[in-house]
């Protein structure tokens, strides 16, 4: 009987009913989606293996202060934008290492998406190739997995390029440009230099449209004002930002021109080696094809400026990688375009590539064996050499015979260096945040916190739980964080960050240290301050602790080694070892701090109970 006479309501909704052609989308965006997925994967791999560095921890502490109403330090005022982004992340997900680095992770992905917006100017192959290089660049991966304004700076720059590349002379791009330009100095002090360059470019771009120019300037100033005062709740913020940011720009970059100028070059020779090779190829092709002189010139000027004023900082290295990624992207896209992919359907061309690969591998094996030397077993070594020479001859003969039958064997060979570069780039990308294969010869981890520090933090926390579980008050309503901790101010971070829920945590300058340490149960000091504390607290148990990673001394002036390494075949093996494994003869010792613990804390923390 249930004969319904009322039809079910099927309302019409234009947006909800719109069909999404997944196949069409997939074809159009699949290459970009793949880049994003790869970029995300390599960034998430080892995302939290390194603890927050002192600088990151200072920014993170300021972000917590911003969201909970505390006072900011000079670090936060120097870089308000990453502080605000981290504060938003903390508001949503709570304070933690992952949440602190989340904005950088997202900014790294935005940079790649922004690259897609440059397609109308640079063309799809170049932008796609550049995006791949950005995704796999160790420098940018590191910048995307650190709480700092560096990757925000890079992403903003790419977005600015995208806005500038629009043909429109309307007001809207000017508004966006003003906002984006303001983001540069808000993200990093080096952004002031970029903003200055942009101001010049913008003035030229809108020289006939003063309205657009004034709109861009207004939005620039408004963005600076609103952001640095965190939407006007801290009115002194703008002045503090200007003072701190300009001070940092002068102190850290402009005042010391050409400091650590070798680092960017060293980075190119090691972590960014594939990018370097492709950038050289790109530059040659640009010059040969006469494509765009400003393209190469701009990149060259940018790299030179960074060498001089970059101070070897992560920001400088990242900007250098960004600049090179355009050149390298051009080179990569051209090389890929040169490969006759359709030829691989022909059996002889495919076989030619296979045979050539075999020849290359055997040659490499032979070279390696020769460079390794006999190592005491001359006969075995000679036998091996002879076998490899015979094998090489056979494979060479096969290859030559196949080559004669192939139609375009030379150009198919291009695949070999491309694959080799891709493998090297992937390796560099995956290992940049790995601690399992510690590579002392990289400049990227200079200033990072030694991973072992977290173990000591955990020990202190467990001891605190055991000893102060029921010391409760509203500052520590759960209890367990009652240890009195004194941190010498120069090494306070990241300890202050990781022990932020300890209400009795004090920061002391070297002059205040002796007084503060009298009641302390945990003291963290640089080695040269230990005597000061030991004088007033002879009962403390001292534990040396690796604190910050440093660059090996040989890398500060590596040119002699590198030069001879290149011309002397005996050093090639070492050079390849350095290129692949970042092995250096003399390891860098991390900077250390000393942790002093009262005997009861030391016992619970599992440290030797000997004062």
């Amino acid at each position, binding site marked *: *009987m*249930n004969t*319904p*006479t*009322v*039809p*079910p*309501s*099927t309302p019409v*909704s*234009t*947006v*909800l*009913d719109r*069909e*999404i*052609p*997944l*196949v069409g989308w997939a074809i159009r965006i699949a290459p970009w989606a793949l880049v994003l997925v790869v970029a995300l994967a390599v960034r998430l791999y080892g995302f939290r293996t390194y603890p927050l560095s002192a600088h990151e921890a200072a920014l993170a502490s300021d972000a917590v202060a*911003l*969201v*909970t*109403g505390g006072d900011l330090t000079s670090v936060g005022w120097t870089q308000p934008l990453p502080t605000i982004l981290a504060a938003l992340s903390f508001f*949503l*997900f*709570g304070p*933690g290492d992952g949440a602190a680095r989340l904005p950088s992770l997202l900014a790294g992905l935005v940079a790649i998406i922004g690259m897609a917006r440059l397609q109308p100017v640079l063309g799809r192959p170049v932008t796609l190739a550049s995006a791949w290089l950005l995704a796999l660049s160790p420098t940018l991966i590191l910048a995307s997995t650190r709480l700092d304004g560096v990757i925000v700076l890079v992403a903003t720059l790419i977005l600015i390029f995208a806005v500038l590349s629009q043909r429109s002379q309307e007001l809207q791009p000017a508004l966006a440009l003003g906002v984006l330009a303001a983001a540069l100095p808000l993200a990093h002090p080096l952004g002031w230099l970029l903003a200055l360059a942009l101001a010049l470019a913008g003035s030229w771009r809108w020289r006939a449209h003063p309205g657009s120019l004034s709109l861009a300037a207004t939005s620039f100033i408004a963005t600076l004002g609103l952001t640095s005062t965190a*939407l*006007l*709740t*801290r009115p002194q913020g703008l002045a503090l930002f200007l003072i701190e940011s300009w001070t940092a720009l002068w102190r850290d970059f402009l005042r010391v021109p050409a400091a650590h100028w070798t680092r960017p070059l060293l980075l190119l020779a090691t972590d960014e080696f594939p990018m370097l090779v492709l950038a050289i190829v790109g530059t040659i092709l640009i010059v040969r094809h006469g494509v765009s002189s400003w393209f190469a010139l701009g990149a060259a000027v940018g790299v030179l400026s960074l060498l001089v004023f970059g101070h070897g900082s992560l920001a400088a290295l990242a900007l250098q990688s960004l600049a090179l990624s355009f050149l390298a992207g051009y080179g990569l896209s051209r090389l890929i375009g040169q490969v006759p992919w359709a030829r691989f359907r022909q059996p002889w061309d495919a076989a030619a590539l296979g045979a050539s690969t075999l020849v290359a591998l055997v040659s490499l094996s032979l070279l390696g064996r020769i460079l390794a030397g006999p190592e005491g077993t001359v006969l075995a070594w000679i036998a091996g050499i002879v076998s490899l020479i015979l094998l090489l001859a056979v494979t060479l003969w096969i290859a030559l015979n196949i080559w004669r039958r192939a139609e375009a064997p030379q150009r198919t060979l291009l695949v070999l260096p491309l694959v080799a570069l891709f493998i090297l780039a992937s390796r560099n990308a995956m290992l940049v945040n790995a601690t399992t294969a510690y590579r002392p010869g990289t400049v990227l981890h200079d200033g990072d916190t*030694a991973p*072992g520090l977290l*173990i*000591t933090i*955990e*020990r202190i926390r*467990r001891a605190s739980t*055991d000893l102060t*579980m*029921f010391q*409760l*008050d*509203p500052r520590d*309503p*759960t*209890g367990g964080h009652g240890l009195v901790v004194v941190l010498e101010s120069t090494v306070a971070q990241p300890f202050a960050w990781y022990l932020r829920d300890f209400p009795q945590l004090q920061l002391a300058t070297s002059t205040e240290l002796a007084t503060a340490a009298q009641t302390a149960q945990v003291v963290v000091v640089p*080695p040269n301050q*230990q*005597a000061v504390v*030991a004088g007033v607290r*002879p009962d403390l148990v001292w534990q*040396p*602790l*690796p604190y910050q990673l440093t660059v090996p001394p040989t890398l500060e002036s590596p040119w002699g080694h590198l030069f001879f390494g290149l011309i002397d075949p005996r050093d090639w093996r070492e050079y390849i070892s350095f290129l692949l494994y970042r092995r250096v003869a003399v390891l860098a*010792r*991390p900077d*250390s701090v000393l942790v002093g613990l009262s005997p009861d804390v030391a016992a619970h923390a*599992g*440290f030797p109970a000997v004062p």
Partner: protein
Amino acid sequence: MSFSEPGPTTNTVANRLTMLQPVRRLLRPTVEQLAYVIVTLLAILTRFWDLGSRALHHDESLHTYFSWVYEQGNGYIHHPMMHGPSLFHLDALAYLLLGSSDWSSRVPAALFGVVLVLSPALLRGESLLGRWGALAASAFLLISPSILYFSRFIRHDIFAVTATVLLFICVLRYVERPARRWLVGALITGGFMLTTHEVTFVSLFILVTFLALAIAARVAPVLLATSGLAVTAFGGVLVLFERLGVPGLPAIPWENPSADAIISFTIRLVTHPIVLAGLAVLLLWALWSWRLLVHRKAPGESWSAWLHRAAPEGSIARAVGYALTDRTGQAWGLAVGTALFVVLYTSLFTNMGGLASGTFGALGYWLGQHGVQRGEQPWFYYLVMLPQYEPIAVTGFLVGLVATGWSGIRALFGGHELSPPWRTQAFLVYWSAVMFAVLSWAGEKMPWLVIHIVVPMCLLAGQFAGRLLERSQSRWHTWSPTQRRIAFALGTVTLALLAQWFLAMAWVTAGPFDTTSGLPQRTTRADTTLVLRLAWVPMLSALVLLVATAIDRRWRSYAGAVTLGFLTGALLFQIHAGWRVTYREGDVPRDMLIYVQTAPHVIQLIRDLERLSLELTGGMNLEIWYDSGTQWPMNWYLREFPNRRYFGTTLSNLPEHPPPVVLYSLEYLRPETDALLRSQYTAYDYPMRWWYPEETTYRAFAIAPELKNPARQNLQTDELPPFTLGDVLRSIWRSISSAREPDQQAKLFRLVAFRELPSPIGSYRFRVYVRNDLVPTLRELRLEQPRLDPVWAAPPVPVGKETAG
């Protein structure tokens, strides 16, 4: 078949094309379908991610332990104290399939949580929530902090509320289009619902009374009058009896429900004057109503035929008429629903007594609990809890209440018909309001019950948000680019004003702790009283913007953009609150939503003991003794230790080979026992359970005269009981007016925004005794890895005394 016939080939091709239709549709989904896919993925992610990390709550440990016992083949006997049997069957099934762990224990709850989030998709009809409304409701259920938290909590509430929603969906869909599947579905979900939790009796009451009211209003409004008179009469009788000194109803023998006690109680109950008076009023009402109804019906006409004639198509009364005549549907639904009920309550036919304990036993037990007032929560418990976590649901309910009432009154006086969406809206308002009232009246109030109130409120908020989105969408299409920019700017400005208010409040209220008077207390920044007032300017500006755009005819079309700005702010706040309480501090009672919770130290201890056991015995054979105070949750957490030993409350001596570990609650530990144990053991104290500090947070909101414990009735002033209604109202006003004071504003803001508590949390503690010879091993093991060799220790320790040795 003839070769000349082209039909089969054409048919085959056509059939193949038809078969490919679903594939084609899959490859070309609509925006709506894609949105549901995203909601589904997010629901799965949010419900299942890190599901096992939070320590099992005391009640959770009871549920999981008895489910595990059941799964191990040792049976399950239903007891009303632990509510319905469905949870135990589902958890036992989870253990059977996935093995027993904290994570697998919560898998059924998480699955039902996902179903709950997706359930509004069945209410997409225009007369129900609408398509945008259903999508919005799903989103609100997804990010509701309380629903998220209790979707990852192995209690009965998530099963009960999901079953309730599904039952109500079946009913609403049946009213919309009386197809048999909805009738059968309603009866089956009804059967399952009754196996979850006793709160479903309230849900059934809500459904039945709403249907009755709707039918009466449609076909015999006079019944509303007779019912009102009956209720008034019964109320008058109750007042009269009270004046005459007639004692209250007899106490339910829930503590000792022996046969004699039940018989005696039943006799006393049915002969009690109040019950007799109630029955008399009921009988009179029924006879009177019957007489009135019979006059409206034609002679010989059946009730269902009468409903068909009297009620229009699409009305509730007409749908009930359809249901009454669909015998097949009734038979199927009742058969399957009853089968579910019987199978689960009898524990797969192994405990026939479950049928009695699941019906009369459950009702009697929980009505008995009303007087016990476990937890002693005041009447305003949910009133103060809801706004802290659910601003969207609460606002949706308030707007719904006003809008429904206003539309109802207009229809009543205007004489026009109310629309089907109004009916859905009215039902959701009724559901929310009655559930809120009943749970606030009930003696036992617990945070997990809040989801029974929040779910209908979320659906209601979804319906309103849907209308807003629908209007915004249609306007967006007709707007010029400039108008779009204005709308976008207004929405952004609203959001920026809210952010500004938050940051300003955070800054002003972040003063130092005052340690001069006992317990340290957070203060506001010095000389910021004026700034605190100014901090409200952004919030007021945003509200003025909303009101102005809503009132001014030229700007009214932009009110939606401003509202969406507010909605986005509320969404961000709910993510903030929900993420913290669910993933970061799920077992730390800084939140009112958490109540009493097992401390994470228990989990840490169990991991340490497992490691110690592996080290010492190569398996889980470590001998662990534990007392009565620690048995929950230790019964669960030590289930894999065959050498665990429960010793009750007293331990007077130790054996020749004392056990490696003894766990003793401080409640039962006597000084002499402590001395005995300390001779051979090293002791560590940890919290076993800890709880939210209610006294210093919300209990002083108002006077609660209904509480039996006089000490908890009034935490606001020094006045002593008894209290009148006037006292209660005055206490509420004092709380509201005290919000003008900067200190109170600051305290409230920091409590809600950052869960900054004005006092420490309370705890039930226990002591872990580790045999002295095992202490060094345990210390090394619990730090997970051996001490780092100082390979990077650059400078040797440069102090003569230390290095000389």
